[in-house]
């Protein structure tokens, strides 16, 4: 019989100075049984009822034959799976994952069993992806709870869940979900390979460690998606995509992820299609305004005055009369002011954050005008751009980056500069890929165009379900 190559003393030495480790000793016949567990990771009631109590009531007459570990794992301990363990490293790993270790004074064999039990956040409404009509359930930090949310939606045996551990020390549990036969094999292999590549650190706590491995480098655009809602994750899996969930993170990573998905919401599929299409058109317009409006305003107001109606030009000139900065400086100051206010609003606790937004919008906006930092028109332009950027929150960093680049180009060359900046942005986006697929998909893939849900969606039964599979085969 194979014995463990470590003793209880080894564990005690290794876990010295750890206050939440528990060594529970009980008598089992003539044998002293020591149960080791982290009290914050394990459910003590579970241990009492299904481990300690059965051991205490274990038939002592059988003990004369000596401790039979096989019998104990199969017949006595009611928690499963109870198995033998051989090495100290394995023992420590299981211990820190919420398992208990059971040592017997008369045997050198050690067994472990799962007794996880720790407090976790209840399932709550998603705070970042609000919907009007549709499921409100959001992911939590508990990976098992998240997995069950998806399984409840996709009751198919083809839904595969592969489990990885990321971080040599943290051993963060990662679930890798896809539907076999639907997700392209090339994509599955690609993501699997990237997960292994990402496992190069001792401690990996956030899903972004994997996202950064999957994402294109040198771009503010997220070429990998994320969601806080199990219904969206399930929907993406059903389209043939891959979802990766991290233990301790309430977001699931989705791959591949296309630019146009930034404008799609759950409501697009749960509400009247005409209303959904209007909403989507407004989001696309808002993104265009947020990115292009500051640059266009600057190009026209510093190079091409003749496009303005003279009455408006009069007004704008009056507003700018007392401003000491050039228009480009004024615009950049306001754009940066807005980013500061936005960042402060996010970082501060929620009640203060909303107050700060009001302060920023009303007082600072008005005060900058009165102080002569910016003209009213510039404040209006930046405010419109800012409000528009709220419609596509996942594009907030790309909007800020590219609107600033376009502003600089526009200040140099006017409208030709504005167009140059715009073309550069589109070229940049066209050069991006998401797990090997063009980021601007389905644009540039006209031969296999089957993504009938781009700028508007048709009837739900006509939207392509197998977005990726045929591409993979062709």
């Amino acid at each position: 019989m194979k014995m463990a190559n470590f003793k209880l003393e080894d564990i005690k030495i290794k876990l010295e100075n750890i206050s939440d480790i528990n060594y529970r000793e009980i008598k089992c016949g003539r044998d002293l049984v020591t149960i080791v567990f982290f009290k914050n990771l394990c459910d003590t009631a579970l241990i009492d009822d299904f481990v300690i109590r059965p051991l205490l009531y274990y038939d002592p007459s059988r003990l004369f034959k000596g401790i039979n570990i096989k019998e104990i794992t199969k017949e006595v301990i009611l928690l499963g799976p109870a198995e033998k363990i051989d090495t100290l490293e394995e023992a420590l790993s299981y211990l820190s994952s919420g398992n208990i270790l059971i040592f017997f004074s008369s045997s050198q064999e050690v067994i472990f069993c799962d007794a996880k039990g720790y407090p976790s956040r209840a399932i709550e409404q998603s705070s970042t992806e609000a919907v009007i009509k549709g499921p409100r359930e959001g992911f939590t930090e508990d990976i098992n709870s998240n997995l069950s949310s998806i399984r409840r939606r996709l009751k198919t045996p083809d839904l595969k869940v592969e489990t990885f551990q990321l971080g040599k020390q943290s051993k963060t549990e990662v679930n890798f979900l896809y539907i076999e036969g639907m997700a392209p094999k090339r994509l599955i292999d690609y993501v699997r390979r990237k997960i292994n590549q990402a496992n190069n650190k001792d401690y990996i706590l956030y899903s972004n460690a994997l996202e950064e491995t999957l994402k294109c480098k040198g771009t503010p655009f997220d070429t990998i998606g994320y969601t806080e809602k199990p219904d969206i994750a399930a929907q993406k899996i059903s389209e043939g995509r891959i979802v990766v969930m991290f233990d301790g993170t309430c977001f699931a990573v989705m791959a591949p992820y296309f630019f146009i998905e930034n404008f799609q919401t759950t409501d697009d599929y749960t509400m009247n299609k005409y209303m959904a299409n209007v909403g989507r058109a407004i989001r696309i317009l808002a993104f265009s305004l947020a990115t292009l409006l500051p640059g266009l305003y600057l190009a026209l107001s510093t190079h091409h005055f003749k496009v303005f109606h003279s009455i408006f030009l009069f007004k704008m000139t009056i507003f700018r009369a007392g401003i000491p900065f050039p228009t480009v400086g004024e615009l950049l100051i306001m754009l940066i002011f807005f980013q500061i206010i936005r960042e402060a609003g996010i970082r501060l606790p929620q009640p203060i954050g909303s107050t700060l937004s009001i302060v920023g919008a009303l007082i600072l906006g008005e005060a900058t005008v009165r102080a002569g930092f910016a003209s009213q028109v510039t404040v209006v332009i930046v405010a419109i751009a800012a409000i528009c950027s709220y419609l596509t929150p996942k594009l907030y960093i790309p909007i800020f980056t590219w609107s600033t680049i376009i502003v600089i180009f526009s200040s140099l060359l006017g409208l030709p500069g504005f167009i140059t900046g715009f073309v550069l942005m589109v070229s940049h986006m066209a050069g991006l890929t998401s797990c090997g697929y063009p980021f601007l998909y389905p644009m540039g893939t006209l031969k296999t165009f089957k993504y009938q849900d781009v700028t508007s969606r048709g009837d739900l039964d006509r939207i392509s379900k197998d977005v990726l599979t045929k591409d993979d085969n062709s």
Partner: protein
Amino acid sequence: MKKKKILVSILLLFTLFLGGCFSYKDMNRLHFITLAIADKDPAGRDVLYTESFAAYRGNTQEGGTIQRVLLETWGNTLPDALANIQTTAPFPTDYSVNKAIILTEKIAKEGIGPYLNGFERDQDISKKTFLFIYEDDPAELLNLEIKDEPYLGIYLENIMTFQGNQSRLLSIRLNDYLNERLQGSGINLLPIIEIQKEAIGERVEVTAAAVLVNDKMVDKISEDEILLYKLLNGDASHGEFSVPHPNEKGQFISLNILDHKVKENLSYDGYEATLSFDIKGIASIQAAEGPIKLLDENTRQDLINNAQNSSERNVRRFFEKFQERDIDLLDVKNRVEQKYPHADLKDILQRTKIEVNTEIEIQGSQVSTDFH
């Protein structure tokens, strides 16, 4: 890839050194010209008057104030004056929103070509500007105080934009003039403005049009003649004209043109050209001096006859007036040349006769439905 990045960076760097119309300008550091008047002083120097708006720091916290700035400079040529004007203002002048260019009668009679050339070649000057002729002292015009619109350039632009379809008003922009002066007989019309001295308050009105042959003003046409000119060219969609009253001698009836079509034809027999106009019009009775028996068939026919005869007579008089003065206002020479390339074009205007056939339908009168 690295080479491309370097190339793009160099190209962008060069843009910093670009000047002229592509250069960066802040609107509060410019004088926006709204009106430019070109004149000649007794010494023979070109004089340029401009009206502009510029913003200055105000006392309010919300922004500045705007001021109407009048500038006057001289130069041996108009481009000299355009350059000299920069030294008379704290901020650079900008012509991109210029509304109107006024040329004085003195200049118009000498020839407006060199002046327009100056405005044409400056890329900064808007070519959408309206052109006018003014017969008096430009300083007097600029010092007018029009209450409802202090900027004369904008005032004139508004007249042309919102009233330009009036049948007795002629409007032309700089770009149109620059094209049309090179086409056909070289005869063009420019609206004449004058200060309305008899009215309450100070006003400027468009009273007539100057006839320019090869950029030189040779004659003027009245408002009624502008209507005929526009009718014959199909430019007037509506208008009013008066005809003798069929029932009351010495009285008139005003007709309102509702619609009209002009079909023109030209024939040439080897010596004489015949320019014929078939005018079909629909009119309604605008006003009558004295009662009219509209239910009477004879009265209605008399009215139609009067309208047709009056129209034919006016068109013929209009043509013959300018034929006598050898001004090819209807572009006869060009029309003959286009249709008969081998025709003898020398003095062709004098060998041209006009035929006018009018057919006017009168569709009752205007109806008032609400007497309150």
